[in-house]
């Protein structure tokens, strides 16, 4: 473990020197440990640390290798993370704890796209109701922690510039970061520019409309009020242009995200209180889909969408292992469709009628430490939701279904998670979790109006009277450390009552040209989902490490129908060889065929595949800086393959050479 940490750190931070130059000041070592804390906060997640260290990975690569995480692909960009088989409505994806809602009714803009690796400090993943501390959920939570400016006594500017290039799509990625401490202030600015053309899949097939352009800028300012209080202001901006989504009938002409936050941290020198964090935030997402790049489109169409969220949260830590949290957020979302037939008046509708959702939640966590290295962690959360469509065209549209969506809907959600763990002698760790989680229907599921789903080629309308999904969950985690081998295993069984499931509306026509008909959602009796994750880490020698992970999910409805979008059995393994400043990593991914599919939903069978990647990284010390060079060959055997969750039968990247150079100073 220690060795891994050292390897990791050496690739992670500008504080590399502290490791290689033990003569450096103690202060620098402190700085190192600060960085170290960030990735150490989730020691469970060995995969994250391991893969992030490879430097050639992007956020999505890292995510896809985390326990129980899979990605839905619609284009070369903007992959949507799903947890086990839980999709975006059932999980919470946050950045620094902030709620951000996609503005795209087609889920083209998962929150993860706003986080560039240059900004990424850590990713926290919690499965099932255990992730409900920051918001009700049944599927879990992914939180991206952005890098923050750190305080150090060294007033020099630290930073990095990097450039990478990938041959498969002539993709370039330029990124930079700067950080400095000035008296009580400390700032960090970073950004990235990414450009890519159409990519080629295995067998040299060009995938049309798969290029993208985007830029990302992040700025953070931290002010130390006194030794106990800190004030932080954060800005994150992301702009995308002509982002291709080959799996969908439309691309994104432009998209932008503006994310602001301000937070106040206090450490108490109090007998009862420990610390408090108060954060207020605001974000505004604009998403403009169009089909101007699609010559085959029957008629030009724009589909803009907006989401505006503001909120706050307050986390209070009290001694004796108690954490209290109160949070509030309010979001306004809307999506339009405008069509331009030639020589006729334009056509307009709101595919997502404008609506407001507000949520206030309270959570309480209490940790009981018992004798014999036993712990009980209890956390509960209650949420109040209020949602209604607001006066606009959307309300009138819905009248044709004899439905008044302007009446506000209230939901009261409860989450409870009980977790017992024991550390046995002989480095055996056991954890048993019982959870109960609830989630409300998404605005799409509630108010969506003829939303076209490419997967099953049906239009969908919402159902205002959907009940919340209620999930009963049990999980077992076993971890055993041997001398050189570390093994961990998760087993889970989730039973979700009132599962929200789609069904065909007979006698109703579609709206989208070429669609097969109309579907809506209803609560079915239950759905169950069970499976396992298995991870091993084998430190063969000090220089050679092998890591592997296995994920498997089995999910079906109450009458035995397979749930849609369930990833098949997957094995991911990597062999890393590290000698001094050189690192060589060979990766192998194997996915079993997925033949348990939901035909109604347009699921397709996916054959199995093997995938091999090779990554080599070399660090070169230049005076007080480090030059990191990386080269990789992904999909070495040029496999023409697709992951089961990929929409529209679009294959993934063929053989790709990736080059990367970064200078850390």
């Amino acid at each position, binding site marked *: 473990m220690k060795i891994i940490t050292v390897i990791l750190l050496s690739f992670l931070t500008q504080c590399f020197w502290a490791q290689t130059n033990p003569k450096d000041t103690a202060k620098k070592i402190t700085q190192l440990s600060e960085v170290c804390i960030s990735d150490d906060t989730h020691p469970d997640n060995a995969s994250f640390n391991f893969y992030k260290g490879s430097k050639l990975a992007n956020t999505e690569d890292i995510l896809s290798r985390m326990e129980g995480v899979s990605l839905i692909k619609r284009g070369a960009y903007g992959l949507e993370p799903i947890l086990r088989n839980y999709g975006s409505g059932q999980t919470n994806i946050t950045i620094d704890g902030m709620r951000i809602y996609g503005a795209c009714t087609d889920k083209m803009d998962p929150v993860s796209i706003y986080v560039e690796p240059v900004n990424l400090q850590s990713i926290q993943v919690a499965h099932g109701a255990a992730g409900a501390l920051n918001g009700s959920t049944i599927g879990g939570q992914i939180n991206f922690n952005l890098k923050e400016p750190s305080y150090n006594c060294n007033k020099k500017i630290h930073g990095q510039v990097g450039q990478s290039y990938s041959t498969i799509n002539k993709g370039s990625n330029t990124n930079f970061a700067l950080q400095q401490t000035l008296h009580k202030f400390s700032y960090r600015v970073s950004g990235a520019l990414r450009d890519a053309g159409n990519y080629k899949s295995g067998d040299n097939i060009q995938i049309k409309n798969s290029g993208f352009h985007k830029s990302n800028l992040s700025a953070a300012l931290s002010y130390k009020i006194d030794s106990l209080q800190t004030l932080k202001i954060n800005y994150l901006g992301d702009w995308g242009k002509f982002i291709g989504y080959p799996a969908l009938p439309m691309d994104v002409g432009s998209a932008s995200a503006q994310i602001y936050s301000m937070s106040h941290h206090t450490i108490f020198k109090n007998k009862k209180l420990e610390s408090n964090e108060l954060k207020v935030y605001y974000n505004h997402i604009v998403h403009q889909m169009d089909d101007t790049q699609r010559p085959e489109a029957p*008629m030009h169409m724009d589909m803009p969408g907006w989401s505006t969220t503001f909120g706050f949260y307050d986390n209070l830590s009290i001694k004796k292992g108690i954490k209290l949290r109160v949070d509030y957020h309010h979001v306004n979302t809307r999506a339009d*469709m405008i*069509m331009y*037939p030639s020589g*006729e*008046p*334009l*056509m*307009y*509708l709101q595919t997502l009628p404008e609506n407001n959702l507000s949520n206030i939640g309270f959570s309480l966590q209490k940790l009981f430490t018992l004798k014999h290295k036993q712990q009980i962690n209890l956390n509960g959360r209650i949420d109040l939701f209020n949602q209604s469509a607001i006066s606009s*065209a959307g309300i*009138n*549209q*819905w*009248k*044709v*279904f*004899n439905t008044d969506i302007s009446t506000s809907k209230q939901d009261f959600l409860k989450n409870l998670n009980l977790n017992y763990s024991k550390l046995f002698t002989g480095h055996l760790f056991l954890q048993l979790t019982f959870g109960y989680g609830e989630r409300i229907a998404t605005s799409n599921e509630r108010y969506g*109006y*003829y939303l076209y789903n490419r997967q099953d080629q049906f239009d969908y309308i919402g159902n205002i009277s959907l009940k919340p999904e209620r999930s009963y969950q049990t999980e077992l985690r076993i971890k055993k450390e041997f001398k050189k081998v570390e093994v961990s295993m998760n087993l889970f069984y989730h039973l979700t009552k009132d599962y929200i499931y789609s069904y065909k509306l007979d006698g*109703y*026509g*579609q*709206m*989208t*040209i070429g669609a097969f008909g*109309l579907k809506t959602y209803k609560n079915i009796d239950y759905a169950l989902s069970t499976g396992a994750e298995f991870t091993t880490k084998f430190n063969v020698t000090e220089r050679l490490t092998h890591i592997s992970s296995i994920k498997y999910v089995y999910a079906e409805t109450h009458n035995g129908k397979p749930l849609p979008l369930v990833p098949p059995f997957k094995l991911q393994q990597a062999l890393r060889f590290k000698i001094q400043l050189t690192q060589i990593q060979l990766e192998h991914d194997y996915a079993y065929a997925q033949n348990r599919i939901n035909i109604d939903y347009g699921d397709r069978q996916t054959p199995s595949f093997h995938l091999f990647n090779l990554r080599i990284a070399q660090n070169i010390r230049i005076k007080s800086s480090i030059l990191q060079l990386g080269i990789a060959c992904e999909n070495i055997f040029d496999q023409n393959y697709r992951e089961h969750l990929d929409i529209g039968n679009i294959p993934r990247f063929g053989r790709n050479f990736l080059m990367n150079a970064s200078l850390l100073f």
Partner: protein
Amino acid sequence: MKLSYKIIALSAATVLTFSCKKKETKIETPTPIETPVETTTMNKLGEVYIQGANAKAFIYTTSTLQTGYNEIYVALFDSTDGSSLSTGHFDILPIMDMGTMQHSSPVENTEDTVVTNGYFKTAVIFSMAGTASQWFLNLNFHNHKNQKFGAAKFGVNVAASSPSKFKSTVVAADNNASIFITLLNPLKPEVGINDFEIVLHKKNSMMEFLPIDDYTVEIEPTMPSMGHGSPNNVNPVITEKGHYKGKVNFTMSGLWQIKIKLSKNGTALSDTQYFEITI
């Protein structure tokens, strides 16, 4: 014939354009005559003496006259003392004079002999466009106050409604009857649920048109450029005098076509006529 019809339509359109530019005038007070009670804004078409009945007629419409359904309001006043005439029998007969022949059009005259809100209300369904030289209204009034009867002739301009609110079709399965289909509602179409109303008339002779009460009407709204329809429409059913009422739903704004399917006792009669509606 075709050409002349075009010319008529064109000139009618011109008239329409001009009349549209005119600001809608509030009801004028016919001096020295009492003010009609109704205060809605209406277009005054004009005024005419009804010879023989000692009456002066002030003629109003709710909009400019078009092919299709037109409500016509007539306020009548005693031409000697200016007092409002509230009892009597008033009716209209529209006539189009095409030189070689004359024909009429469906008309809905009220049976009421007492005015409501100061007006005798009637409705005329103009079957084609025409300027004053072709269309005129024969006004007939039986003044119950003095028991006198009189008539007047009043020329009107009728523009072609665009999109058309009037369709005619020959129904082979109903003895080659000439059927007039007139759209009344939605007047102000909007996305969502709309009242739908049509009137059906059968041509009995050049001068006589009878309301049809025994047809079955089905409607089918579609957006032609997308090829989709809308859910939960309510087929119109007969209410009275050829009027069929139902509901039509529009799921989005844009151009819609509402196809009218007519049948009688289970026999399909016509399904080719449609009205265009733009929201």
